[in-house]
């Protein structure tokens, strides 16, 4: 297990992905072990993708989208909000660690917020230790 937890982030291309860019160009510090996957909208993310990320070795998964009211497609993030509320509770129900998953709203202007979320999550994941329950190693 690497020292730093592996964090996979599904980032909306209209906001959070640009937010991550801003964090980079503003030279804000955040853990380098985050792997961002650009998606057209947080509403595009099937919870099966989240599970897949865990199985393939993620210690934590972040889905990041636009603030309510700001969705490029008007409402994708609001569908995502309902969906991932259920997912989070379901992970807990199965006895998995719901803290490993977060849905966050990060706008294109919130580079600082992006760095903060990544730092927070990484700290949480360090406390939790490596994902063992959902990781499937060949």
């Amino acid at each position, binding site marked *: 297990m690497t020292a730093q937890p592996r964090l996979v982030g599904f980032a909306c291309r209209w906001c959070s992905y640009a937010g991550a860019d801003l964090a980079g160009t503003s030279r804000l510090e955040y853990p380098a072990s985050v792997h961002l996957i650009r998606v057209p909208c947080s509403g595009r993310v099937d*919870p099966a993708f989240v599970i897949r990320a*865990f199985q393939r070795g993620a210690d934590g998964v972040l889905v990041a989208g636009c603030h*309510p009211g700001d969705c490029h497609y008007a409402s994708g993030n609001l*569908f995502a909000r309902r969906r991932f509320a259920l997912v989070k509770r*379901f992970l807990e129900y199965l006895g998995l660690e719901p*803290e490993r998953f977060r849905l966050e709203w990060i706008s294109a202007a919130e580079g600082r917020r992006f760095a903060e979320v990544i730092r927070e999550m990484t700290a949480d994941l360090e406390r939790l230790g490596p994902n063992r329950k959902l*990781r499937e190693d*060949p």
Partner: protein
Amino acid sequence: MTDHQAALRDIAAKLLGGGQVATFIGFRAGLDPSRPVPHFVRDASGAGALVINPFCGAGLARHVLEALEDGPVGILVRGCDGLGLERLIADGRVTRERLHLVAVACRGAVDPARARAILGRIPERAEVDAQSVALIAGEERRSVPRDSCLLGRCLSCVDPSPRLADTWLGEPLPSGQRDFEAVTRMERQPAEARYAFWSRQFQRCIRCYACRNVCPACSCRSCSLDDPELQERATGLADQFGFHFTRAYHVAGRCVACGECQRACPMKVPLSLLNEKFLKDIRDLFGVADPHRPSATEPLACYRPDDLESCRGEAR
């Protein structure tokens, strides 16, 4: 229920004879009297093979998909079948006009394996009422509690009668409200106990896909669970968690709680306990009173601007 057998045969014969339907879906006797099988009657003269009794356990809704290829379908419908058909109609897979629903109220179906274990031999008949079940073989008649021999899904059933009907056999029974008691009990367990419980259940899974194939909400022509990118064939514990997560989530908001998945599971994985968790949370988080009954707007295909922001981050 058995009293309606003659009327059912009559109605099926008339529908088929009059050309209103091309197929009538019901049950006929199996090799063993306690295991009737789904049956597809194609002409009026075959209607005499139809049976209806408390051993009729299989859900029939899913079978309309293929039968409709031959023309309009008549079908025997209990509460659970009705919800399944509502699901297929809401999903746009079936048009209401091509179905003739022969409705009957159901007090519960007997699990043939449990009944045989109680009786020590194959039961020939059964009578189910609101309080108990009578199992009958030869001269022997034994009255036992409902929870000792009914299918699990029937014990928590709150929809004995279908909401859609074209013809009624007898009278409908009143419907109730799900209490999600089993889910609540599970939620109260410590996390490690829940993990241990589900690990034990999922480890048994043989990935036969009966749960999916029997499900009226799983009628997609192309399924995520067949996509090797989303669901590998491997059967390690994490793969099994992933499989059951994805199956349950992909019917969340559309599951009608008919319990067919759990009935069909040859490894007795308590799949309803997964589906019901989603139903309960949909009720609690989104204020949907009866989330298992299909409605014009699916709970996950809509939103409210004032959906609790707190349901985003916290697990509870």
